[in-house]
């Protein structure tokens, strides 16, 4: 008897329980809800892609005079002279890539080490506390980093770090030269500090996702703690670590304010790690307000497009590395 009652109540066309979607043509019927969701999500996705394309087109339109004027020479020449309306962006490309690479070389091992310390060595609570501090670094505005770099890091580099580097690596010309504190090295150090939280957080999540079972498998075979970390934690995390490094690299390539304050802003290819230089982002920040000629503005826009391109290429290379590594893993 009860069954019958239940059955009849189920067949009642209530919009929430009937699989056919309630009264025909109801706008919020189940069937339509799915369609609505899908349409909404699709249009949002299209909107984002459209935004990117529009942005690029507008930038390119603005940069077009510089493209027609200088052509390929814009990226092969390092002659940047706003007074004579001569623009070549090579020195900025070198500046950006160089500072970012040095920053990654410094930041990646530190970040991986800190992440391992947090997940594998310290007890959970201590690890979380350190994680909190590391994440606080990420919350510091870049202009504050710039100030700190200008007033504290630059003198430190000039007086302490420079003599050490010169006495150890000074035989290589690139590590020898006049040092005024502001320059490539200081900018790279600031960048390194700024991207450490990014890489650390990502690595920590990747290491955390390694199953305990893998760690026990390594320990059960008689591996030391370090061997266990190498075998069961770092090795399977390679793509994740690369992902963290790429995110850090992306941030380093685009970082503007802090770098502009400590790099010296000299549109020249740096002769040594101590030289003043300029990056793509820093030259835009420094010159857009004073750009008198249309060609100057146009050249700065072209630098912006190049920066976008360099970031894309860096991402592509990283993906290639991961892809290649994974393919090797598959045998």
């Amino acid at each position: 008897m009860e069954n019958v009652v239940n059955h009849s109540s189920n067949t009642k066309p209530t919009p929430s329980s009937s699989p056919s979607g309630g009264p025909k043509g109801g706008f919020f019927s189940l069937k339509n809800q799915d369609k609505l969701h899908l349409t909404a999500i699709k249009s949002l996705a299209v909107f984002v892609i459209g935004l990117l394309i529009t942005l690029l087109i507008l930038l390119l339109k603005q940069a077009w005079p510089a493209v027609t004027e200088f052509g390929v020479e814009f990226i092969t020449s390092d002659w940047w002279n706003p007074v004579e309306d001569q623009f070549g962006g090579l020195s900025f490309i070198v500046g950006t890539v160089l500072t970012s690479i040095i920053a990654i070389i410094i930041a990646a091992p530190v970040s991986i080490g800190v992440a391992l310390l947090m997940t594998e060595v310290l007890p959970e609570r201590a690890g979380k506390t350190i994680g909190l501090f590391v994440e606080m670094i990420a919350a510091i505005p870049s202009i504050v980093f710039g100030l700190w770099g200008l007033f504290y890091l630059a003198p430190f580099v000039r007086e302490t770090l420079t003599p050490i580097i010169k006495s150890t690596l000074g035989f290589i010309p690139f590590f020898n030269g006049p040092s005024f504190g502001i320059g490539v090295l200081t900018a790279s150090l600031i960048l390194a500090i700024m991207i450490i939280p990014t890489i650390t957080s990502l690595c920590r999540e990747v290491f955390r996702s390694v199953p305990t079972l893998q760690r026990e498998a390594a320990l059960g075979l008689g591996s030391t703690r370090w061997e266990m970390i190498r075998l069961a934690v770092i090795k399977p995390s390679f793509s994740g670590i690369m992902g963290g490094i790429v995110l850090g690299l992306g941030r380093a390539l685009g970082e503007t304010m802090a770098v502009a304050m400590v790099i010296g802003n000299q549109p020249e290819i740096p002769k040594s790690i101590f030289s003043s230089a300029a990056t793509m982002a820093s030259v835009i920040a420094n010159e857009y307000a004073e750009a008198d000629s249309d060609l100057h503005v146009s050249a700065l826009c072209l630098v912006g497009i190049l920066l976008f391109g360099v970031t894309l290429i860096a991402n592509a290379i990283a993906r290639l590395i991961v892809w290649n590594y994974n393919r090797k893993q598959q045998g």
Partner: protein
Amino acid sequence: MSQPIISVKDLHIWYNDFHAIKGISIDYLPNTINAIIGPSGCGKSTFVRTLNRIHEEVPGARAQGSIMYMGKNILSSEVDPVDLRRQIGMVFQKPNPFPSMSIFENTVIGLKLQGEKNKSKLMEVAETCLKKAALWDEVKDKLNKPGTSLSGGQQQRLCIARSLAVNPPVLLMDEPTSALDPIATGKIEELMTELKKEYTVIIVTHNMQQAARIADYTSFFILGELIEHGLSSDIFTNPKQKTTEDYITGRFG
């Protein structure tokens, strides 16, 4: 009667305040299969994990009592757990080959950790161990494929081969077949009876038929206490304790 290879005396284990194992004493004879049965949460896994001190990986775990192996109490601080684990190997509940390594690398990684670099020697060991684990015929043509490309049962046999490569006199198995289907389980049981010619096997299992089929001795645990230990034939046909009988006949709460 031969000397026990492992002799556990009055073992207590705590996780922080939780008293997981309450004074267990068992002797294990060489070249036997020893099963540990009991309801979930009775401390079987904890017990077996203490035998190669991998329990130390759980924060807050501590053990008291003595586990004599080769004349030494393995719980004492003089014994290096790394060295101990090379002699008392372990196979876990879920197959856990290293995902970033090939079948070959997975098999010989234990030896590599001990510093063996000779390629032909490694290859030789890999072949022997994979044969012992009854996996050789299935993988000999794809040794460079990743270990995780195998089926669950094959992965577990790969893990057994990996443990055998360092030639441990004792092999601990923590529910090695609970994640496997009956055919794979059958293969691993067959393998264990083969292994006991050279090794001593201590296996935790939820499956009483499995214990009855393969184990020479069976121990029955409840809530961290040893209720009964003896020949499997006795335990399963003529248990001395009422609780044991209730449990094996399925009348246990």
